[in-house]
C-alpha cells in the first residue's frame, strides 16, 4: 500500500523510478575510445552469440552458426537468438519461433519445443550442468528482433526457465522480468540475470528463482549478455546506453503510442544497435555536430560498451565506442586466449581487443 502511494507520488514529482535522470558514466565507466581502436577481424550481418565450440570459436549470423573463418557449422530455418556451450560439447541454440536446437555432443540434432515452456524470444541461456539449461525469455509479447517494441511498451513479461534436456521438461523459475537477456552462474551457485529494461543485474537462486538481490543496479545502459572471465569476474555487455530524452519518452505513454503507430521503427526515438545511417533519424547526435563532425559526448541512440566486473559483479574497467564511433551494439563477447572478441551487432563487426582478457581483476572492497 505504502509502496503504491510512494510510486504514485514519484510519478507526480518525477523522482525515484519515475525520474528522467540517467546515472553518469564515471569511475570505472569513464568513456574512452577503446572499441573504436579495436581491430575488426570479420563482418557479417546481425553478428551475435560468440562462443567456444568443438569446431573452435564460433558466432551466429541470422540462422547460421559460423566459425571465425566464415565456415558454416550449422544452419537452421529460423534466426538464432542465443547460443550456449555445455560442458559435454553440446551447443544449445535458441531459434526464433523454432524452440531450442542442440548441436554437437551426445544430443546432436535434438530439437526441443517444450509444451509448457518458452517458444519465442529466447535471448540467452546458460548450462548449469550437462542436462540442465537455464533459458532467458525476453518477452512473451514480442519476438527477439522486436526488442524495441517491448522496451517502448515497457514490457515486463520476460521469464527465466529451467529446462531438463533429457526429459524435455521446462520449469518457470522467475517471471515478470523486464527483458532478461543475460545469464551467468555465480561463484556461489546462484544465477546472475541481466534485466535490461530495469538497467540492473539480479542475483537469484538458480533452483527456485527466488531472491531480490540487485548485484548491480542503476546502470547507465541496457545490459545484455554476461560472460564469465577466465581471470575472475565477468564481462558485461550493453545493447546501448540510456539518455534523458528516451527516459522521458518512456514516461509518456501517449507519445509512445503515436510514435509507434505513425513512425517507421528505424526512426523511433528509442535505443538502437546502430545510428547515423540516415538523415531521417531522430536526434542526429542531438545537434552536437560541428564542422561536420559529431561530438563524442553527444546524446546518442546507439553506443558500444563492454564492462569488466569483478566476482561480486562490480564494474572495474570498461571499453567504449561513443557517439562519434561505430562499434555500437555490443551484444556478445568471448575470450580468445589473451584477447577478447566482441560482436558489434550494429555494424556487424567482429572486434578483437588485444590482451584485455589477461588482465587480473581484484575484488572490490
Amino acid at each position: 500500500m505504502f509502496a503504491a502511494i510512494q510510486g504514485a507520488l514519484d510519478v507526480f514529482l518525477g523522482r525515484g523510478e519515475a525520474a528522467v535522470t540517467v546515472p553518469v558514466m564515471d569511475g570505472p565507466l569513464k568513456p574512452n575510445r577503446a572499441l573504436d581502436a579495436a581491430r575488426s577481424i570479420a563482418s557479417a550481418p546481425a553478428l551475435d552469440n560468440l562462443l567456444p565450440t568443438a569446431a573452435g570459436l564460433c558466432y551466429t549470423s541470422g540462422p547460421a552458426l559460423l566459425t571465425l573463418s566464415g565456415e558454416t557449422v550449422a544452419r537452421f530455418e529460423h534466426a538464432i537468438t542465443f547460443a550456449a556451450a555445455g560442458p559435454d560439447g553440446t551447443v544449445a541454440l535458441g531459434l526464433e519461433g523454432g524452440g531450442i536446437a542442440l548441436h554437437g555432443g551426445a544430443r546432436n540434432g535434438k530439437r526441443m519445443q517444450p509444451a509448457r515452456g518458452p517458444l519465442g524470444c529466447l535471448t540467452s541461456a546458460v548450462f548449469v550442468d550437462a542436462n540442465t539449461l537455464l533459458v532467458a525469455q525476453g518477452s512473451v509479447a514480442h519476438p527477439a528482433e522486436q526488442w524495441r517494441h517491448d522496451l517502448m511498451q515497457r514490457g515486463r513479461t520476460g521469464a527465466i526457465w529451467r529446462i531438463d534436456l533429457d526429459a524435455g521438461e521446462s520449469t518457470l523459475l522467475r517471471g515478470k522480468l523486464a527483458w532478461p537477456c543475460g545469464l551467468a552462474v555465480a561463484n556461489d551457485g546462484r544465477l546472475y540475470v541481466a534485466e535490461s529494461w530495469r538497467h540492473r543485474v539480479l542475483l537469484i537462486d538458480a533452483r527456485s528463482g527466488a531472491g531480490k538481490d540487485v548485484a548491480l543496479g542503476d546502470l547507465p545502459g541496457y545490459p545484455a549478455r554476461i560472460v564469465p572471465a577466465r581471470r575472475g569476474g565477468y564481462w558485461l555487455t550493453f545493447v546501448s546506453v540510456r539518455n534523458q530524452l528516451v527516459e522521458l519518452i518512456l514516461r509518456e505513454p501517449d507519445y509512445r503510442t503515436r510514435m509507434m503507430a505513425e513512425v517507421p521503427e528505424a526512426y523511433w526515438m528509442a535505443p538502437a544497435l546502430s545510428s547515423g545511417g540516415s538523415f531521417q533519424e531522430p536526434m542526429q547526435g542531438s545537434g552536437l555536430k560541428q564542422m561536420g563532425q559529431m561530438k563524442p559526448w553527444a546524446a546518442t541512440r546507439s553506443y558500444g560498451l563492454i564492462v569488466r566486473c569483478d566476482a561480486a559483479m562490480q564494474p572495474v574497467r570498461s571499453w567504449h565506442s561513443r557517439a562519434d564511433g561505430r562499434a555500437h551494439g555490443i551484444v556478445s563477447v568471448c575470450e580468445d586466449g589473451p584477447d577478447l572478441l566482441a560482436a558489434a551487432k550494429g555494424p556487424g563487426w567482429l572486434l578483437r581487443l588485444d590482451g584485455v582478457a589477461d588482465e587480473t581483476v581484484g575484488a572490490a572492497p
Partner: protein
Amino acid sequence: MSVTLDRTEPKQAGPVPPQAVPLLELRKATKEFRGVPAIKDIDFTLMQGEIHAIVGENGAGKSTLTKAFAGVHRLTSGEMLIDGKPLVMQSPADALGAGIAMVFQETMLVPSMTVAQNIYLGEEKLYNRLRGLYIQAQQFLAGMNFAVNPTAQVSTLGAAQKQMVEIARAVHHKARVIIFDEPTAALTPEEKNHFFNLVRRLVVQGVSVIFISHALEEALLLSDRITVLRDGERVVTDATKNFDRERVVQAMVGRSLSSSLHGEAKRQPRPYGRKVLSVQNISSGAMVRNTSFSVFAGQITGLFGLVGAGRTEMMKVVAGVLKRDLFDGGEIRFLGRSVRYRIPRPAVRDGIVYVTEDRKVEGFFETMSIAGNIYTGKLATGSNPLSLVSMGEARRLAKTWIDGMKVRAIDPGARIIELSGGNQQKVVIAKALVQAPKLVIFDEPTRGVDVGAIVEIHQFINKLADDGFAVVVISSYLPEIMAMADRVLVARQGKIVEEMGIDEATEEKIMYAAVH
C-alpha cells in the same frame, strides 16, 4: 603547478640596495589571540619598488601578518615602521592613510555600482556629475594602462578586471604598498599573466607589493624576495634567486614533503569499490547546475574547483545541509536508494556525514567540552531517542576518539576553544565519525590547521579509505588533492566538468579543467 608567465615585459625596477631605509618594516612583531601567538617575533622589511612574497602553509600566520600591515589587527608587541618612522595603527583607515592598501582574495567592490563609482567610493560630493566622474576615471585607468570600462557595472566584470579596479582604487588612495592576498586563486591562466604584468607595472611606478600565494611557482617567478613563515614564525627571508621550490617547501614544513605531505602525485589509485553515491542531474539555486557524479567505496574522491565553483554546495545538498528544492529535478541515490534529504539528520542516519570547512561556525559548540562535542555527534544520529544523556558515556567516547585521533588535550573535559586549530579539526572529524558513516565528506579538512596536524589528518583520511569507507575530500589546494585523491572531480560553474584518475592527473590538467 607551473605557470607560464609572459616574460615579454621584463621588470624595469627591482629592490633598491639593502642599505636604503625600508619602506615598511616590522620589528619583533607578535600578535596573540587569547594568549596564543598567531605570529611571534617577526622581523620583516619591504623595500621601495620591491615585490616581496610571503609563503607558508595554512595557519602559518600569513593572514595575521598582512592584516597587521593593513591595520585590521593591532600588534600585541613589537613595532611597525614606515620610512623608518614608527607607525601605530588603530584601524584600516590609518593604514590607508599611511599608504598601505590590501586587495583581498574576494574583492571588496560594490557589485551594483560602476567601476568609476567604486574607485571614488567615499569621496562623493553633494552633487555628483557622473559624466565627469567617468572621464576622470577613464583618464586615471588609462594612465595605469588598465583596460577597464569605467562605466561598466562591477558585477559584469571578470575576476581579473575586478582586481584591476581594486588596484586602481588602491593607487587612487595613493597606496605606496599594496598587499595581495591569494590574488590569482580565481584567475584564469590568461588573466594570471595579465595580473602579473599589472604588478610589474605598479612596481615600475614605485609601488611596493606584498604578495601572498599558495602557488609557490608564482612566488618564485614574480617576487624579488621571499619570506617563509611557519607556525607563526619567520623561518627565512632571502632573495628569490636563492630559492627553488624544494627549498621553499622545506622551509615551509621544516622537512622534505616528498614522502609525507604532498608527495607522490603519480601513484596507483585504490581500486573502485561499490558505487555508494550516484548524483544525477541535480540543481540547487544558482550554485549547483544540473550536475552528475558518483562516489565509490574504498576510495578518496577529490573534489577540486575554484572559489564559487559550487563544490561545497553540491556536497551540502547531498548531505542534507542545503535543502534541495522539490521541483529542481535530479536524483540522488545513496547505496542504490533514491534519497532527498531536507535536513542532515536522516542523511546522518543513512550514513552520510559532512565535515564542514568552517569549523568555528558550523563545526563545534565552542562553549562545550571536547567530550560534549563528540557526544553531540553521537546524539545527532537519534539512535535511541528515549535514552538518557550520559556524561560518563560521553567521556568514554571522547577518550576513545582523543586517543584514536591523537588529539592533544589535557583531558576530555577541556573546552574545545582552548585547543589549537589542528586539534579542533580532529575533534570535528571525531564528532562526525562517531556517527558510524558510510560516506564521509571532508570540506577543506586542513584549512587553518598546523602542519603537523595536516599529516595526521591526511593519514587518518587515508586509513578511512583503506578501511572501505567512501571518502570525498573537497579542497581548493591542489597539492592536497594530488596527494590525497584516488580520482579527481573538477567543478566549474556549479557542475562537475572533468574526472580523472590520479595516475593521469596533473596540476596543470586539473587547473585547466577548473578554469576553461
